[in-house]
């Protein structure tokens, strides 16, 4: 999916059910927003509650007292307690808040006339709905009052005063009422002439119906249209459900309105009447609560009782991904909305692309797809959008620049290497430790490599480098491909050995590219491990599964098996294995949106108090950087100071480069007995004094030691700098490529004290007269 097309957007949007109505609303034949009603009642805002009812109900005072509430049958509260007493709460509302019906004059009048014959709930609804739309409605009834069977309800349920009061709205809507008017077949032609449309409130197959229309009283089930043009009916099924009668009337009113406007009667009418909502609601873990009972059944709920009952409402929503993903949560809405924003962002030709940062902030971890009942993967969309942005040259250059330079470093001569095992000229295996483990814990790479050479036969080669994940995450497909081609060529040169990965990200990047790769953990799970015998009990640890292993159960199992061998007690985090959470490094989130990536760490480390074990170097370092005691799985195998290993601070960016370079030099030296030709640049020998404050600034601003060395080297060589005569400081800048670095420093005998460093990407074109 490179460019998201309209249809594709629709398909994706449809997967997100959040905007679907709650079960109660979908189950209500006229779609009263009971969820909103519950929240109004909770706030004791009866005015708003009544408005909520009025939005859908023609005569709330009547319906609120007699509704047979099919909504309650489907209310989700039934899974955890009993359904919300929606009908009783409606009654509470209309008993305690008098209606202020629509005022006449607020409605634009139409010239067309409609005759409504019969004034039961159906006819009343037709009259009300059409009058509200501005039609000139005349309501006929053969009786001497309107209301039909409404008068049959017990007085204590629906009193005559209420009926009169509620139906008075019709006069305010200027509905003409003609009582004692029986309409016979003879009158029909006359009515057809006088009125633009007719509604006949006749029971199906009733004597009246036959008398009036003969065989023509066959109703279209969707529209209520009869075989005669301009004549509509309302009784679609025999039902005496009050609320379904209202729905019948509404359906006819919609048809009549459409008929009079000359538009299609049948187009998109699927949403009318009761239906089953697609909204997914997870009721797991919700405490069951029984219905609140009324102290006085006759009088109905008291205010307190009503508030209490309404408070049982689950406020049904899906939000599964929002509960799981801080990124989705942090943008304040839900995927359906984001999809639209991303789509618009991709379609902009001129103007601001407001969703760039959002697209670049996703960790592409796939958790959303896992928790979404429909499997919507927002990460996939973000990833595809990045590719599109790169393709159009619209990717903000600052978003991934630093990470891509880090990758370039790892694949430069300074780190990259591919060798057979010392003393061998073929390889059955090749160990690919990855760039991040080599940067965080170079000693473990050495330990593991030695262990593998000892345990495996047929030669274990070594390949150092970066798998290309940063390019993939950044949407740089070409760069990723080129990088992979280089790796593949080296691997072929080694004789296509089986690749052993130590990093889950490398593993996921290679998965589809190289045949038959195996993770270090799967191998180790079946190996005798150093230090295993003298282990007593390791204690309790919680496992941080790497997000790039989401669909690798064999790795999850292997890691747990290793921990068991080491006699650790394992606690599973609420989100683990295929539902694990990213540490905020995935997808280069931490470069595009640092604040969010920090929050994600804080959220993840608060899931349990026990010490964590990670098997991704970035997870380990990021958790430790926020003070969470976290081991790398290899620490538990190789470290002789576990206390220190648990709290070891994360290696700063500068030292990540240095560690990789040193590792390569060391291995070349100790294993292959080679003295690497060190062609260090002159600036690299510049000695710097950097205190913790400045160190923090550099980490924050992604400024490396080598950047600072280059600035000072250049300034001291050319004299292009500023000086402060008061304190002897110098301020200089240098632009190696795309970023200008500024350093404030002071020369010392042995080197330079660094006081400050900052950078900008904008280029200054310096004056010509130099």
């Amino acid at each position, binding site marked *: 999916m490179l460019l998201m097309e309209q249809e594709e957007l629709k398909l994706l949007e449809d997967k997100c059910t959040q905007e679907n109505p709650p079960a109660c609303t979908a189950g209500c034949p006229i779609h009263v927003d009971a969820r909103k009603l519950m929240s109004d009642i909770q706030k004791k805002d009866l005015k708003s509650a009544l408005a909520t009812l009025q939005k859908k109900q023609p005569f709330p005072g009547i319906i609120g007292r007699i509704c047979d509430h099919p909504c309650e049958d489907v209310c989700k509260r039934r899974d955890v307690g009993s359904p919300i007493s929606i009908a009783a709460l409606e009654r509470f509302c209309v008993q305690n808040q008098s209606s202020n019906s629509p005022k006449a004059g607020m409605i634009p009048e139409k010239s067309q006339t409609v005759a409504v014959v019969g004034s039961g709930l159906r006819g009343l609804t037709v009259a009300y709905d059409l009058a509200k739309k501005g039609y000139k409605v005349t309501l006929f009834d053969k009786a001497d009052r309107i209301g039909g069977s409404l008068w049959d309800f017990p007085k204590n349920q629906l009193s005559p005063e209420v009926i009169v009061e509620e139906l008075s709205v019709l006069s305010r809507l200027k509905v003409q009422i003609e009582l004692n008017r029986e309409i016979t077949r003879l009158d029909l032609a006359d009515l057809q002439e006088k009125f633009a449309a007719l509604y006949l409130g006749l029971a199906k197959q009733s004597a009246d119906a036959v008398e009036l229309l003969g065989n023509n009283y066959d109703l279209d089930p969707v529209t209520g249209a009869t075989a005669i043009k301009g004549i509509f009916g309302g009784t679609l099924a025999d039902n005496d459900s009050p609320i379904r009668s209202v729905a019948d009337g509404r359906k006819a009113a919609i048809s009549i309105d459409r008929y009079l406007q000359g538009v299609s009667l049948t187009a998109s009418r699927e949403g009318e009447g009761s239906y089953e909502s697609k909204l997914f609601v997870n009721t797991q873990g919700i405490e069951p609560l029984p219905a609140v009972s009324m102290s006085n059944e006759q009088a109905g709920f008291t205010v307190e009782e009503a508030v209490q009952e309404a408070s049982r409402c689950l406020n049904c929503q899906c939000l599964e991904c929002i509960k799981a993903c801080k990124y989705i949560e942090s943008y304040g809405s839900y995927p359906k909305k984001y999809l639209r924003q991303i789509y618009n962002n991709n379609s902009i030709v001129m103007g601001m692309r407001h969703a*760039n940062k959002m697209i670049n902030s996703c960790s592409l971890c796939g958790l959303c797809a896992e928790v979404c009942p429909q499997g919507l993967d927002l990460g996939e969309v973000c990833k595809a959008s990045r590719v599109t942005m790169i393709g159009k040259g619209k990717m903000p250059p600052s978003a991934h620049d630093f990470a891509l330079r880090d990758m370039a470093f790892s694949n430069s001569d300074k780190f990259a290497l591919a060798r057979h095992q010392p003393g061998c000229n073929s390889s059955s295996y090749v160990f690919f430790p990855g760039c991040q483990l080599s940067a965080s814990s170079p000693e473990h790479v050495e330990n593991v490599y030695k262990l593998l050479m000892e345990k495996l036969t047929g030669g274990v080669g070594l390949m150092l480098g970066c798998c290309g994940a940063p390019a993939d995450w950044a949407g740089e497909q070409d760069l990723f491909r080129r990088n992979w081609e280089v790796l593949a060529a080296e691997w072929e040169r080694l004789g296509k050995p089986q690749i052993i990965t130590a990093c889950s990200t490398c593993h996921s990047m290679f998965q589809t590219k190289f045949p038959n790769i195996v993770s270090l953990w799967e191998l180790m799970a079946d190996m005798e491990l150093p230090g295993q015998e003298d282990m007593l009990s390791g204690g309790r640890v919680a496992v941080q599964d790497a997000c790039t292993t989401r669909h690798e159960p064999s790795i999850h199992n292997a890691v747990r098996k290793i921990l068991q061998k080491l006699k650790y007690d394992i606690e599973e985090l609420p989100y683990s294995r295929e539902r694990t959470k990213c540490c905020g490094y995935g997808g280069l989130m931490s470069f595009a949106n640092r604040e969010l990536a920090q929050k994600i760490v804080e959220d993840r480390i608060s899931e349990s108090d026990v010490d964590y074990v990670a098997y991704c170097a970035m997870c380990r370092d990021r958790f430790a950087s926020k003070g969470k005691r976290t081991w790398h799985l290899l620490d538990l195998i190789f470290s002789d100071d576990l206390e220190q290993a648990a709290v070891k601070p994360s290696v700063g960016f500068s030292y990540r480069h240095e560690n990789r370079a040193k590792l390569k030099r060391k291995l070349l030296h100790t294993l292959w007995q080679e003295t690497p030709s060190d062609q260090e640049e002159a600036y690299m020998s510049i000695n710097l004094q950097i205190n913790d404050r400045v160190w923090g600034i550099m980490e924050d601003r992604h400024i490396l030691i080598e950047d600072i060395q280059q600035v000072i080297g250049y300034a001291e060589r050319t004299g292009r700098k500023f000086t402060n005569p008061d304190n002897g400081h110098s301020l200089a800048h240098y632009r190696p490529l795309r970023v200008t670095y500024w350093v404030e420093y002071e020369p010392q005998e042995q080197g330079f004290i660094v006081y400050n460093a900052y950078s900008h990407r904008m280029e200054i074109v310096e004056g010509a007269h130099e």
Partner: protein
Amino acid sequence: MSNTPKQTEKLPWKCGKCGGELERGLVKASYLGNDFEVQELKCLNCGLVLITEELALGKMFEVEQSLEDK
């Protein structure tokens, strides 16, 4: 983009290359193919330009970000 410091505020820096005083003057800046002329501090004598930390991380950063999203 220049964030004019109060007239009285005097930066302690002198040009280290030629010893010249710094003053505000027109400077050409460019980013992602957009060129501007802005008032910045530079050496009266040799033209060396000084971008302060405040400017780099404040206004300049904002302009960079909005150009990147264009």
